[in-house]
């Protein structure tokens, strides 16, 4: 009955147009703005559900495709579609966006409508980035979403927000400019090879490329995506951005924006430059392992809860990039590619799982911050005595962050470690150190913040979570448990796409 609806476009534009409407309510009646925002985010979530239910997981090709010519001179199209890689990320985005709106409900009193609108527009832009099938469209969404994020941190952020926003903007912008140059080169190169230039990502996948060109393109992509992920050593913008961002900003940043970097690797780097990926896989693996271990140590000594979780995010994202680039080392070591899919799918699961867990962790800090106006670990102690329900959730999400089996945090790490062992004993060895370090920094924080005797008068007067806070924690906890106990449905939608990807990148593109 609705089969003719441009569903994917609706999912992209509902929040953007909704966000505009919210802006139009003005800043006087914040309750109207809030209700409208919630409604928009719920509608978007509802619209995204058919993307999952009507998704044909047996197909590797793009689904829900839409193509409208846009700038015909340069063959730029409004071309969108989803496959098994982008669909879960889009559903994650619509889900987290609802949580973010709820999270800002009572907390944001300054320019509420603008705040909500910024998040809705950001939501649409992020979904657009995941759905774009045209490289230029992708680039437009990719850059455009910096603006609402910039505004969110810059207006509703902490005292040092200017430094953080500039750092955030310059870091990400620097990376993306090189990506733009690469995309332009690819367009020209396609014109040379085929007679007509293209920004169609799937056509770029098939475009033959000499190795040295591939390497340059790979490196420029790497810089763009590595900043977003973020990978060591271009990660230092993230802790600053998190610390200054309002809770909702941190949630979106950790849960979804970091995933754009990971998504870039599987959508651009691997399929467009497979030979360069093979040549330079050691570099990504090295940086990933450094991220996992080095950042794990750094996280341990943070005094600020948000910084600690930010570093924890970087460390967990190391599993994503590690899982993506194991194919060639596995083939070298075992003589077969068996295990490469495990690594790639594990990395995908890790992205989804980290979306839920990091969102919950930042929300937990937000719950405390709203009451005590401090993110410092030393200002807390014995929170469990006055906030038992909160403490239960905090311990649960801490365990999920430490990768406890039965939670989603375990699934991706487990799969990537299994795959890494096939590539090289030491990859698995270093990656598995996270079992110890991840537990150490998370549980040590829990010990100092949640457990113990009541540390001071402020803690003594804490009130436990409100119904609103309880509800969003519960939603996230259920998601974390569901993926942890039964990840099969999540993986089933990916198989065809990932198999296809592995088959594609196993073949050289050098003409």
């Amino acid at each position, binding site marked *: 009955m609705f089969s003719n609806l441009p569903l994917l476009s609706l999912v992209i534009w509902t929040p953007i147009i909704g966000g505009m409407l919210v802006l139009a309510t003005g800043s006087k009646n914040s309750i109207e703005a809030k209700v409208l925002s919630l409604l928009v985010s719920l509608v978007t979530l509802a619209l995204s559900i058919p993307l999952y239910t009507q998704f044909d997981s047996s197909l590797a090709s793009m689904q829900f495709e839409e193509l409208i010519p846009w700038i015909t001179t340069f063959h730029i199209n409004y071309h969108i579609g989803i496959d098994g890689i982008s669909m879960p990320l889009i559903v994650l985005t619509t889900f987290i966006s609802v949580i973010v709106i709820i999270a800002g409900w009572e907390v944001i009193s300054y320019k509420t409508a603008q705040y909500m609108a910024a998040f809705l527009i950001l939501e649409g832009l992020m979904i657009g980035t995941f759905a774009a099938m045209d490289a230029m469209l992708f680039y437009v969404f990719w850059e455009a979403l910096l603006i609402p994020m910039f505004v969110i941190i810059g207006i509703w952020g902490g005292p040092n927000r200017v430094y953080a926003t500039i750092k955030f903007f310059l870091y990400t912008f620097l990376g993306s400019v090189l990506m733009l140059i690469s995309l332009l080169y690819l367009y020209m190169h396609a014109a040379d090879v085929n007679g007509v230039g293209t920004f169609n990502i799937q056509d770029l996948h098939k475009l033959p490329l000499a190795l040295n060109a591939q390497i340059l393109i790979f490196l420029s992509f790497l810089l763009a995506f590595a900043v977003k992920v973020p990978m060591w050593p271009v990660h230092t913008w993230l802790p600053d951005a998190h610390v200054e961002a309002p809770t909702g900003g941190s949630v979106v940043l950790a849960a979804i924006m970091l995933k754009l970097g990971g998504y870039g690797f599987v959508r651009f780097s691997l399929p467009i430059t497979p030979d360069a990926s093979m040549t330079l896989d050691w570099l990504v693996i090295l940086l990933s392992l450094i991220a996992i271990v080095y950042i794990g*140590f750094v996280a341990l000594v943070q005094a600020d809860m948000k910084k600690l979780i930010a570093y924890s995010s970087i460390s967990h994202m190391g599993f994503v990039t590690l899982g993506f680039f194991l194919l060639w080392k596995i083939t070298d070591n075992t003589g077969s590619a068996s295990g490469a899919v495990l690594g790639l799918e594990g990395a995908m699961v890790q992205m989804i799982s980290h979306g839920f867990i990091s969102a919950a962790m930042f929300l937990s800090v937000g719950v405390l911050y709203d009451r005590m106006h401090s993110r410092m670990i030393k200002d807390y102690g014995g929170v469990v005595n006055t906030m038992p329900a909160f403490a239960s959730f905090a311990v649960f999400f801490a365990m999920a962050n430490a990768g406890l*089996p*039965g939670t989603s945090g375990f699934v991706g790490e487990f799969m990537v470690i299994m795959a890494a*062992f096939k590539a090289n004993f030491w990859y698995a060895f270093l990656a*598995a*150190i996270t079992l*110890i370090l991840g537990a150490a920094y998370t549980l040590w924080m829990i010990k100092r913040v949640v457990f113990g005797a009541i540390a001071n008068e402020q803690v003594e007067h804490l009130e436990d979570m409100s119904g609103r806070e309880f509800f969003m924690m519960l939603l996230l906890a259920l998601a974390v448990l569901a993926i942890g106990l039964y*990840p099969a449905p999540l993986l089933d939608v990916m198989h065809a796409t990932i198999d296809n990807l592995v088959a594609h990148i196993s073949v050289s593109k050098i003409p």
Partner: protein
Amino acid sequence: MFENYSDSSVYLAIVLAPLIGSIIAGIFNTYISRAVAHTVTIAGVGLSFILAVFVFKYFAFDDAQVYNETVYTWLVSDGIRFEIGFLVDNLTSMMLLVVSFVSLMVHLYTIGYMQEDPGYKRFFSYISLFTFSMYMLVMSNNFLQLFFGWEAVGLVSYLLIGFYYQKESAIFANMKAFLVNRVGDFGFILGIAAVLMVFNTLDYADVFSMANSKADLMIEIIPGSQWSMMTLMCILLFIGAMGKSAQVPLHVWLPDSMEGPTPISALIHAATMVTAGIFMVTRMSPLFELSETALSFIMVIGAITALFMGFLGVIQNDIKRVVAYSTLSQLGYMTVALGASAYSAAVFHLMTHAFFKALLFLAAGSVIIGMHHVQDIRQMGGLKKYMPITYWTSLLGTLALIGFPGFSGFFSKDSIIEAVHASHLVGSDFAYYAVLAGVFITALYSLRLFFIVFHGRERMDQHTKAHLKESPWVVTVPLVLLAIPSVIIGGMTISSVLYGDYFSNVVFVQHGHDVLGHLKEEYHGPMAMVLHGVTSAPFFLMVAGIATAWVLYMKRPEWPAKIKNSFGLIYDILDNKYGFDAFNEKVIAGGTRGIGHVLSKFGDIMIIDGFVVNGSAKSVAWFSSIIRQVQTGYLYHYAFAMILGLIGLLALAVF
């Protein structure tokens, strides 16, 4: 009653009954009364116990078929199916019986022990959750679910050690327990990864059936040197067991775990969870048998644990810590048995130990109740006349622990000693003398505890003394019910479990390692074993241990202090527990934090942010400040520049 054991519903019911109880008591904590909380959890565990009895009967007496089925597929990736499923055979059914019985006793006991605690309902929820997790662990038919159960029991252990979350020592101990276990799990997950790499499946049956064909695989860990894949895999898996079953040097968490309430010390940190490592290695016998290096490693680690942790039990003054060190030492015995390929003997000792050690812990708890939560044995004494049931059951438990001929512990421990004696692996001589010496030490610390607590001068204060009385029936009934198997289960079952074919379908032993088969030739029934036992070396060592304890703590109570003074150095070493804790705190924990600070301060803040990021921002600023000089705004400057440019261009054109 349950005719169809090939139906998964029986096994699902065993697993889910305690889980449901736990969820009701945990999530609806604030809406239900204490009575509801303990009723639903006890009903859940009770039901699973009854079912476990039937399952055990079915496997032990009715010659059952092994049950090995998938419950659901967790995920499929790369053509590998990761599943949740049950494997129920003779080993599983015995573990189920032991776990459910001890768990049920502990549930009952908790009603009495925790009656004044505000966390009463939460406690019941946790111990039922533990029971569920332990079932998942022992019933697993694959490595993945094993790891699930493995970590889940670790989680509950974490929650329970930190049960008194206001106590700094408790929340330190639970974090320490979790992290030390994670060190073990680090090895364990790598071991699982090795299994997946070699066999491309994590299903036990598939892995074990292919094991022999992969025995000669090599792996190059360090370029240029080839390692046996099986040795690597087995040692990695065993590192997991070292964490969970508290083997040196990963034993440090277990004594501290005594910060938790006593019922869980009995259930988790004595009878069940800590034996998970023993269970795991036994389950993996087809793999471990392929690496003599790994077996020797296991045997030596076990022997060190058995002997040196026993020494520490002699000088402890906290009633629970004495029993905790005794648990460490006994786990060492089991590990030694594994190393000697006497898997059945290890599991046999696991079973007898579960009963008598749970008994000893619960008896210690009963003493603690009577003493109003004083745990220092120097303030006890002469409790025999106040707490007769606790006294007599403790005596039976102690005799079982020291391996007094005829008691359960005698059969299992003597078998281990004989098995090690018969082993020819590297390290078996050392292990033999260690476990032999351990017999003396076990008798010494056990009887020391027994004499100081129940006999001699009454050292408690008047107030405590006035209120001293036997514990209520919910406490003493479990003691009696545990005392019965502590006495008789060994003699009753040794003929079938150890020297019969009870484990013939479970445990796989290479012909050259078959020490138990060798012992079987000289085995003529439990009575003959008892008669032979009273003339053997372990018996004399045990008697010597009892006599020493009697002299030191009954006859000449002033002597221990003198000995302590004349052997100050040895006492200090023991008192510092060989320095493990200090080393871990200073070097491992301190070193880790130190690395973190260095990387954070120098790596992130100074080099990346200070030098690269802000540095490039500064150099851009500096560069533009220079360039800015050119933009003076004076027309003649610009005109001058244009003329210079023009001359330059002209010069280019001319030359």
